């Protein structure tokens, strides 16, 4: 018997199965870890995947956890489809959060319908500004954006921490955290006495808009052409540089909104852990979601589920809370591996 790897595209029916297979494989692989820490993998995955959905409170918590992931997932998707490998959603999110805070703390006199749109616009603009430099460097100087966007994440974090340890340091507690934003700038709750807030609806709206642009507008088609075949796109008369630039800026803007969401919906002030890796998780969400809006929605809920579950599971079974992170990282790797099956087949002869 001989195994051969051949280049040949997967049949169409196989493609939707790829994320499912990746999830299945991830569960198998991480079960080994669960066993190693002395827990029963069936119990563990019950708490991860089923238990959070079984009560209203925890189900709403899943939605709360999914909200920023919907946004960062949409941000990364938008960039990746357009051929701009934005690894900097984390930094753009931090900048969006900073801008939202800067606006929010001055909104004491403004009504919500002024304060909230202002914060959204400010966060969007800040995210855009943060991706502008790598985007220009890519377009004008052909400098790889994977590196530049990634490095700027660290820069963003340092800036935030400088602000929090300097001008915005809490004068009373001396904690590195900003003053609270005005009450009128806080996202209203969708369901009283839960954490589910306006940001969830905003995230769904963004997903809808991304879906519309990517699938229903000529610009979306141009983005795909540029992302999939820049040479051919240029030949067809598409302005490749402009398209790349816009994809990058919109992506950065959406990531900025994720930052606004965390400030106005959850924390009400700026802390340096405000992004907490959710910009990076956006890459997992976008990849697992197959770079389309509905896939991203499902993927965001799935990761939100695991996030919620990892707290339950560590409480119930005493496994480290990091298991959730391990599962997410494994999921990214298995998804990438399974994506190869779109292009290759293994033949046994």
């Amino acid at each position, binding site marked *: 018997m001989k195994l051969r790897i051949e280049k040949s595209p997967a049949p169409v029916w196989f493609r939707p199965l790829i994320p499912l297979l990746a999830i299945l494989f991830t569960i198998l692989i991480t079960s080994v870890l669960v066993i190693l820490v002395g827990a029963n993998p069936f119990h563990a995955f019950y708490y991860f995947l089923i238990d959070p959905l079984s009560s209203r409170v925890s189900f709403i918590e899943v939605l709360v956890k999914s909200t920023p992931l919907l946004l960062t997932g949409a941000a990364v998707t938008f960039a990746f489809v357009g051929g701009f490998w934005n690894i900097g959603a984390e930094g753009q999110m931090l900048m969006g959060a900073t801008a939202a805070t800067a606006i929010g703390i001055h909104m004491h006199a403004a009504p919500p319908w002024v304060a909230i749109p202002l914060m959204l616009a400010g966060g969007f603009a800040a995210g855009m500004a943060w991706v502008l430099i790598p985007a220009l460097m890519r377009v004008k100087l052909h400098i790889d954006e994977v590196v530049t966007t990634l490095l700027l994440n660290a820069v963003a974090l340092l800036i935030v921490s400088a602000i929090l340890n300097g001008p915005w340091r809490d004068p009373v507690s001396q904690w590195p955290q900003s003053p609270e934003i005005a009450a009128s700038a806080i996202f209203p709750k969708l369901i009283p006495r839960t954490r589910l807030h306006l940001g969830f609806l905003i995230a769904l709206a963004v997903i809808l808009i991304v879906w519309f642009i990517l699938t229903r507008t000529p610009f979306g*088609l141009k983005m795909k052409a540029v992302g999939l075949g820049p040479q051919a796109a*240029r*030949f*067809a*008369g598409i302005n490749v540089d402009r398209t790349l630039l816009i994809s990058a800026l919109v992506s950065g803007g959406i990531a900025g909104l994720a930052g606004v969401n965390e400030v106005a919906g959850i924390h009400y002030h700026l802390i340096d852990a405000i992004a907490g890796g959710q910009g990076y998780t956006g890459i997992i969400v976008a990849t697992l979601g197959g770079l389309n809006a509905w896939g991203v929605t499902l993927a965001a809920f799935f990761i939100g589920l695991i996030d919620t579950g990892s707290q339950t599971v560590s409480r119930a079974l005493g496994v480290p809370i990091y298991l959730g992170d391990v599962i997410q990282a494994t999921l990214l790797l298995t998804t990438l591996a399974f994506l190869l099956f779109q292009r290759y087949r293994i033949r046994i002869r």
Partner: protein
Amino acid sequence: MTESISPPAVEMRGIVKRFGPVIANNHVDFTLEQGEIHALLGENGAGKTTLMRILYGLYHPDAGEIRIKGQPVVIHSPKDAIAHGIGMVTQHFALAAPLTVAENVVLGYTDGFRLDLPAASQKVLDAARRFGIEVDPNARVKDLSVGQRQRVEILKALYRQADVLILDEPTAVLTPQEVEQLFEGLRRMQSQGLSVVFISHKLHEVMAITDRVTVLRQGEVIGTVRTQETTPAELARMMVGRPTFGVSKPDTSPRDDVLLRLEKVAALDSRGLPAVKDVTLHVRAGEILGLAGVSGNGQRELAQVLEGVRRCTGGYIVANGHDITNAGPRKVMAAGVGRIPEDRHESVVLDLTVAQNMALEHLDAYTRGGVLDKKRMRAHAEQLIEAYQIKARPDDPIRTLSGGNMQKVILARVLERNPSVIIVAQPTRGLDVGATEYVHQKLVEQRERGAAILLISEDLDEILTLSDRVAVMYEGEIMGIVPPDVDLETLGLLMSGVRIANEPENTEAA
């Protein structure tokens, strides 16, 4: 050399290799004497690379036998080939960029488990000295120029004790100075007793460096000649053969109005060297002007300039009364120029669908109120699929189409707009006979409709059958313009860079 009693370094007999319907090598005989530099000459697709990949164990022949120094051998893999003293430098280098030259050379060829790098470095230096190949063994490959990387590849082969060296189009990536250095190195190796197979389609290089030439054409050996006893013109003629096509163009004669005018057009290639020099051409309505020439003489760059994707560094271009010099693809298309480029992958996005690719050049026409009119795109695709007999559905990704059907998609996209000027390059490369005939038929129809067509092709048969006039390009310049019934002798001379006296394009411009 040939007179010596020693058996040939390599003998290949009756080699057959098929790729599906394509016969890449059809009963090829090839003999490499010890100590000679032997050219394998032929147009793109003639089967040169295939033959040498078989010798190097990368492909397995369907039939035929190989002898090395008189001994019959079976070569399963490059490992076997290396063991038989054969080394090959391919068109794509296989070097690890972050590693040093010495590390690259010894990589995968170390004795035992220990890696004694200083010793390896010394051995590499010795080999480099012996063959006069200048390269610093401690330099990192990523810092080297393309020419230097090629030298590393050659060193790699020599380090593995190769006494037969295969070079697949080694000069394609080199500057003229680097070519000279390469040739010096090859002569040194020859004087040390190495045998070299030199693959090329550049006649002057073959004339300059080789002892014998074997010409391949469409997978068959046309002949083997001594370089001293032949001429570039004879080699060109052997490479291109004679017309054999079924399609014929009707006897309508071109009209007088010039629809495409190139005046002293110049352009650089991707390395920044001059590739197109002062090209002046006028194409009239209802005319096919064929642009012939051995590949790599600036045709590709000229086509890209006309398509609007390469900068024109001198002169100007007028299409249909519009100045399209450096105008970019959109304005070129708006001027009524249809473009069918050499590399199909340059003009379609492989992962988009047939319908999307058919609409891509004119998305405005499929947009209503800012929204893509998908129904219209689909209907449009269905209509073209029907009209051009394309075997595909509108939603199939272009990637899944055969070469012929992909070319039909491009043809349909261009021709449906009734362009008054058509730039078409290598339109039938890699297509089967049926698809080739179809493409030719369509081009002739466009000529009758009154389009001005510039047909760039390395396939002389194609050019001679379809063209009203034939311009020949050599090293970026037009050597002359001749009627399609010109004798092959003259054509061969033009293609090898001999300019003949004929009325320049300017006089007929009036």
